[in-house]
């Protein structure tokens, strides 16, 4: 069977897909890709459905070798550069990896999370309906663990007849404040505190991981205390513990919690927020449901249209041609300041 063998990677390199649906009532976090837009793009490039499991890289890149056959692969996210046997591949371009070749994922340059998709996906058994690795539950990934050097990832290696594809630069990429909807517990805060949240600059602290992003900024005072009887949590909830420093809850969050949640990041802005590196400043803007829904609809339509936006790279698939193509593309695009995912 065709496999990707890990030669090196960071400690939080893991398989992630849409996430684990239906078990939050039993305390199981949904997990899933931190940047679903980048996941969808990487999958589209190799002909997979948008939520197929891919390898998620967090903060660090990694190295792999290809064994037992060829693989059609693509890397998207955080401005990471993919190289095959040391030759960089143009951004947002899929590439064939031949048996015996090595693949290198460069470190993130303008974000935190990147996704390596393989055509057909990985031949790994899902746990509770998902391949997404969750640290606390010891679920998903390879036998409930993140990836480490020496791991062998079996690949289904389907659809190898496709040609390498390219995607245009992400037109959805937005800048500006992260949009939130107020609630569910904004009534636990004074109007002054709500103004502080919406008018101040916060900084992403080094305590930012798959569970949540701690922010530092002006202290958000509670009006009615900070202990509530635990209630449900969703992705993007901004909870405010006693310290007054908000935490934005992300995919590996707990399923319930006992701090008031002042506002919630809208679903369409979660991927952009997830790519903000520690030290980056961030502002929030309150929106109504209409605007959040329009943004969610636009994102869904954009993901659905990804396959139609692919353009073939159009080069004969000999090693020489592929290498010459990649050399040119890589040299030009790797050095250009503006690449696929500008998130800061």
């Amino acid at each position: 069977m065709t496999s990707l063998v890990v030669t090196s990677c960071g400690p939080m390199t893991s398989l992630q897909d849409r996430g684990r649906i239906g078990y939050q009532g039993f305390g199981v976090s949904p997990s899933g890709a931190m940047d679903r837009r980048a996941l969808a793009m990487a999958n589209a490039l190799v002909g997979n459905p948008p939520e197929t499991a891919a390898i998620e890289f967090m903060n660090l890149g990694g190295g792999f070798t290809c064994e037992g056959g060829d693989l059609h692969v693509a890397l998207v996210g955080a401005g990471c550069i993919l190289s095959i046997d040391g030759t960089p591949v143009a951004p947002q371009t899929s590439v064939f990896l031949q048996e015996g070749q090595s693949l290198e994922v460069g470190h993130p340059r303008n974000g935190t999370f990147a996704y390596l998709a393989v055509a057909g996906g990985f031949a790994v058994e899902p746990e509770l309906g998902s391949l997404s690795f969750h640290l606390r539950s010891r679920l998903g990934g390879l036998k409930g663990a993140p990836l480490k050097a020496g791991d062998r990832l079996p690949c289904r290696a389907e659809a190898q007849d496709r040609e390498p594809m390219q995607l245009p630069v992400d037109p959805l990429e937005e800048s500006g404040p992260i949009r939130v909807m107020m609630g569910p517990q904004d009534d636990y805060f004074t109007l002054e505190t709500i103004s502080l949240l919406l008018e101040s600059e916060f900084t992403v602290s080094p305590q930012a991981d798959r569970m949540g992003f701690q922010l530092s900024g002006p202290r958000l005072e509670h009006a009615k205390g900070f202990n509530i009887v635990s209630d449900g949590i969703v992705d993007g909830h901004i909870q405010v513990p006693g310290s007054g420093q908000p935490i934005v809850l992300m995919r590996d969050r707990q399923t319930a919690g006992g701090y008031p949640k002042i506002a919630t990041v809208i679903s369409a802005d979660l991927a952009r927020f997830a790519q903000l590196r520690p030290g980056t400043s961030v502002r929030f803007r309150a929106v109504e449901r209409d605007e959040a829904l329009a943004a969610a609809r636009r994102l869904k339509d954009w993901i659905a249209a990804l396959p139609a936006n692919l353009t073939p790279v159009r080069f004969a698939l000999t090693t020489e041609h592929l290498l010459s193509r990649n050399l040119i593309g890589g040299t030009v695009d790797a050095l250009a300041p503006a690449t696929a995912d500008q998130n800061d």
Partner: protein
Amino acid sequence: MPTPKILPCGDSAVTVEFGTTIDPDINGLVLALDDIIRASPPAGLIETVPTYRSLTVQFDPVATDYDALVRLLSEATKDLAPHNAVGRRWRVPVVYGGEYGIDLEEVASLHGLTPNQVIEIHSSAIYRIYMIGFLPGFTYLGGLDKRIATSRRLHPRAKIPAGTIMIGGEQAGIAPMDMPSGWHNLGLTPVRPYAPGRDPVFLFAAGDEIVFEPVDASRWEALEKAVRAGDPVAEEVRR
């Protein structure tokens, strides 16, 4: 009971809040609404998450008619009857005290009781599972006798073993896995509320009841062996 509040949780969820306290009737309403929504899920529903006092309903915003969902939730909460003791009752064997429950003596002396009295009080109550979370399979139990209710430890422990039977404030719980905890450890059970790969993965559900059966330390090894062989060991008993 006042009208429940429907609180927005971004564009992809709402929380239907029946109250702000830990109360069996409030929790019964949460579970009753959960039953209704699960029985006929509206278009776009992703999942429901029942907690002590509220039901969080998560949905795909693009596939959901939000106004219709809010109407459905409002309608469903009218004339809702609390769903008390909806689930099964489980007997869970516990070895109390000593190395199995390192805080038993301290809890006893805090309340002017003997360790045996604490065991007697703890094991004669019927506990209700209010909710499962924040970790996979962690059971939040109500029904602790106020005579042994004990404020949380000043210094939480970084790690307590899976199966720890513990109390914190007026709550009780069973640790599903090694975890950090500020609660007091009264004993240990070989029962695993959560075991990836076992069928069923989760033994207990919100709305179930738990009774604890004190067992002698000499039986620990045999019980643990049975658990390792895939036997849940927790026994379903009649009410």
